[in-house]
């Protein structure tokens, strides 16, 4: 099992994903009227901004749907 570094498994998973996908600078996640790079996604989640909270909610919703839906 992967070692949890931040105490927040979601942040750790997103951090790993960002590291793995740095080679794809064209990637952006568009939410409403804003586009986020991979680093901005991680930053917003880490800082728990309103946008980060919304993104976290979306990830958890999708994960729950995939596991239990």
């Amino acid at each position, binding site marked *: 099992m992967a070692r949890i570094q931040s105490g927040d498994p979601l942040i750790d998973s997103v951090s790993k*994903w960002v590291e793995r996908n740095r080679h794809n600078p*064209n*990637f952006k*996640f568009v939410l*409403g*009227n804003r586009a986020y790079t991979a680093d901005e996604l991680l930053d917003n989640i880490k800082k728990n901004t309103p946008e980060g909270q919304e993104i976290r909610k*979306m990830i958890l*919703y*999708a994960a729950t*749907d995939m596991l239990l839906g």
Partner: protein
Amino acid sequence: MKALADYQHSDLVDAAAVRSTFEAAVKASDPTLLVFYDHGSEDAWWGSDGKKLMDYSNVGLVSGREVYTMACLCARKLGAEAYRKGCRAFWGYTEPFSFTTDQEAVFGKLANKGLLLNIKKGKSWAEAVESVKAAFTDEVDRLQKEGGNGWAVVALINDRDSLVCWTSESQPPSDCPFRRAGINLFGRPGQRMTKGSAVAMILIFTLYFTALYGYIDLMYSQYNKMVLDMGYAAFLGLFLAEVLMIHEYMKSLDRK
């Protein structure tokens, strides 16, 4: 097959996509369907000038028409209000619309699919919603099998589940207890009852039964037994008239 461009239509783009031009165009061309591709919020569509293009104060413009939009969030409140004002179908999203740039073509196809199914294939809005949601799920399955981008999967699932089309078969929910009671009692027309009319109905029946109770009490104390009197016939007539009035009012709301 008829191309979309062959349908009679008016386009409002860039500087023309503002409130005054929009209102004038709807009144002039009297469209059956409005399609909006720009930013939205819970209670408004936003124009290219950064101001509200449609909100509660001019949402009556879509009465008797159908609406198709991918604007974020607007189905939640603006769409619900549009339906209550007589919009025949409001297609939209109750959450922010999201996508990833590496799968932009897929999201674009899904965002337009419902419109094409309705216009070109003749599917009802309810059938189109079902088909589009199934298409979202197919893309989720495809990406998972291919080990594709997880962010695209997150966006697909959230978009799929926030997609709604408010019609008489799928009506918007309401937070208002009076409106909920109205919907339970009268169905679709209950969505369109105003607060004033709901309060008036409650008052009419409360006062009616208070007056009836007072009258029965008076008659009983006077004769020490129940006697038939013209007053009872008047109360019965009044009750039937009130029920008929409410029935006609609800029918008029349903026709809007």
